[in-house]
């Protein structure tokens, strides 16, 4: 006993926050494309949003290699499901449950997949948006975020998210939060992707940048309210 290699100490290449909201026609997910190697922003073109089948999108923060392992598992799952060819397809709820079981079982073996996963999808008109964490905690909500997004973006969601937003309103809300994350999260870069899933299909945008304004009053004297900090 005890000859098992423990790979659970720390992640190596990590992705920062993922944001997700429900809107009128479906789900929107957003993230930046940075892969950090500790405090170095080493990889700047990491795709952290992936399509799963025809009606689900997955975003992950945390260890990138574990995310790649998860997408491999899901690809196998989706191909097997596709080969049945019986008119039935795995929907977002089913994939959520599958991921939950995978994450929870790994945590029980003290060898977690070091990710916070955001899963969004729509099947037969029913919208779904949920999260699975690396210890197997899982829930669904109208808006979710991982990592720093929980602290910086979710308060904005709580104030400004409303039922049945249009696509434009949803994108604007996400862009506002992405900008805040870029200003305040040191592991975020100004290069983002957004994924949209509706009954009509999935689109993942090419990486885009947002207009940044470093002339804001609050940046002029950043330690004004907290003398001695930096």
């Amino acid at each position, binding site marked *: 006993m005890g000859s098992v290699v423990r790979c659970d100490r720390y992640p190596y290449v990590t992705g920062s926050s993922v944001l997700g909201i429900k809107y009128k026609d479906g789900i929107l997910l957003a993230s930046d494309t940075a892969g950090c190697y500790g405090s170095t922003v080493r990889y700047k073109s990491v795709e952290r949003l992936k399509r799963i089948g025809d009606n689900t999108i997955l975003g992950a923060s945390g260890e990138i290699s574990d995310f790649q392992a998860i997408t491999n598992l899901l690809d196998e799952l989706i191909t097997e499901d596709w*080969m049945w060819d019986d008119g039935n397809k795995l929907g977002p709820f089913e994939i959520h449950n599958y991921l939950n079981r995978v994450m929870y079982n790994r945590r029980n073996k003290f060898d977690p997949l070091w990710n916070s996963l955001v899963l969004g999808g729509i099947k037969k008109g029913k919208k779904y948006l949920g999260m699975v964490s690396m210890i197997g905690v899982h829930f669904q909500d109208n808006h979710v975020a991982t990592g720093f997004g929980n602290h910086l973006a979710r308060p904005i969601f709580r104030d400004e998210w409303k039922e049945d937003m249009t696509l434009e309103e949803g994108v604007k809300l996400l862009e506002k939060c992405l900008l805040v994350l870029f200003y305040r999260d040191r592991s975020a870069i100004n290069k983002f992707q957004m994924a949209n899933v509706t009954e009509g299909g999935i689109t993942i945008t090419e990486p885009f940048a947002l207009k940044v304004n470093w002339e804001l009053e609050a940046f002029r004297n950043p330690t004004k309210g907290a003398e001695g900090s930096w």
Partner: protein
Amino acid sequence: MSSIGTGYDLSVTTFSPDGRVFQIEYATKAVDNSGTVVGIKCKDGVVLGVEKLIPSKMLLEGSNRRIHAVHKHAGMAVAGLAADGRQIVARARSEASQYLSFYGEDIPIKELCDRVARYVHLCTLYWWLRPFGSATILGGYDRDGPQLYMIEPSGVAYRYFGAAIGKGRQAAKTAIEKLKLSEMTCREGILAVAKIIYEVHDEAKDKAFELELSWVCDESNKQHQRVPADLLEEAKAAAKAAKDALDEDEGMDAD
């Protein structure tokens, strides 16, 4: 072809004096007695068709599929013992999945055929295993283009332009040889395969049958899938019309 191998046919590990393994030949008989399966390789893809004989009116339409996807880019049509065929397909799927996970790319069709043939042959080498009582026609599309292979119960596998197994194989092969496959698209191929299957179906000996058609071609995005419902109906209608016309002609000649 003489059928009885008295004394040399009890085990698949016994040769007869004239160099035959009778158990394998008997396995092939199981294939020869099943509904016809046809495969053709067209200019832009492969079409597979099965004459699925329906033994009972109680069977739900569309059940007991004889054509199975092996991976996104390949499919197999099975003739002979259905359960044996299912096992072969399961093995093919497992090989394809393992290859992808090991090499990071879709299994080339030649490689897939090789693996399946190896497995089928394996079951002819030991006295505690029996040979598979089914043959499969494998169609797929990889970077070398569309390909068609057939794997027999002996484990022999060849690459074909057109292949047929089952009851009506002789008539089907003759019909396939008349087709100009290198100039045909899969859309035309579907009509041709449907026509052939309706033609070789023996109304006197067998009752009802269901036509199963699948393709893997440029139009299907190089993915193996059942032929879309509207094209299938079109093919069935055209094939039925052709068969009725043929029957009419034959009726007149008989008079």
